[in-house]
């Protein structure tokens, strides 16, 4: 198949569906986060994958808000509050991870297998 034909089809689809490229990118970001969450052994790296997932969801909220309901602001405010919650969650998570590190000198998931005692 001719390559320019394929590009033409893709451009045609995107011009009819202007939200699609944003959604594709945010899907890739989300599932990169899922991949990292499954494969990583380091607690900090897992938390970073979680940030990717949250960020992809924020992009989706904003894009749906802008293209489908441009006169309203629900998606933007949901993203703002989600960013606030993500900040809080990361701060507490990192505090816990540092505490785990202090008690066991390791933050690998395989090493962290006891709670307090």
């Amino acid at each position, binding site marked *: 198949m001719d390559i320019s034909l394929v590009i033409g089809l893709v451009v045609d689809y995107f011009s009819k569906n202007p*939200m699609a490229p944003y959604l594709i*990118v945010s899907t890739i970001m989300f599932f990169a986060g*899922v991949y990292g969450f499954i494969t*990583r052994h380091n607690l900090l790296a897992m938390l*970073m994958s979680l940030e990717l997932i949250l*960020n992809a969801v924020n992009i989706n909220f904003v894009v749906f808000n802008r293209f489908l309901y441009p006169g309203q602001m629900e998606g*933007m*405010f949901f993203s703002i509050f989600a960013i606030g919650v993500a900040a809080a969650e990361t701060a507490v998570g*990192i505090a816990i991870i*540092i505490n785990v590190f202090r008690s066991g000198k390791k933050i690998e998931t395989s090493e962290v297998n006891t709670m307090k005692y």
Partner: protein
Amino acid sequence: MEITASQIIFCILSALIVGGSIMTVVSRNILRAATYLLLALIGTAGYYVLLNYHFLAGIQISVYVGGILVLFVFSIFLTSQVGEKMPKVSWSKTVFAIIASLLGAGLCLFVLLTQSYPYAEQVAQTEISMQAIGLSLMGTERFQYLLPFEAISILLLACIIAGILIARKK
């Protein structure tokens, strides 16, 4: 076929986001992973600017890049040696993770792209004024968000106290 400047910027930002997020989860040096996460987050802020949400882009830069990422880098320095590589992931786990994420991505993309959306007549090209945002945050009417705003403030207070309590020396 005309290519506009915003399309070129969109392509650059998309490359930044996709490359950054994939390298974040693949890179074996955790400090490098944090740097790639920075690229992905800045690309997201660029998306928000492209969509005319300038306030949200500012929040993204100041909270994510200026706050969360700096916190990550600090804790990486506290918990690992510089230049230390993370151990290799086992082969079967990698394959399983790739299959899971590809299947999920395929399913999501199929649902998202075969859906027909009721697009708005015209996309607003103006940015939302700061006054409108402030008024929406400070009210209890319909489309106003005083309650979640206060809930977030309580959450942040609880989170500050919890952070100090958990991380302090015994």
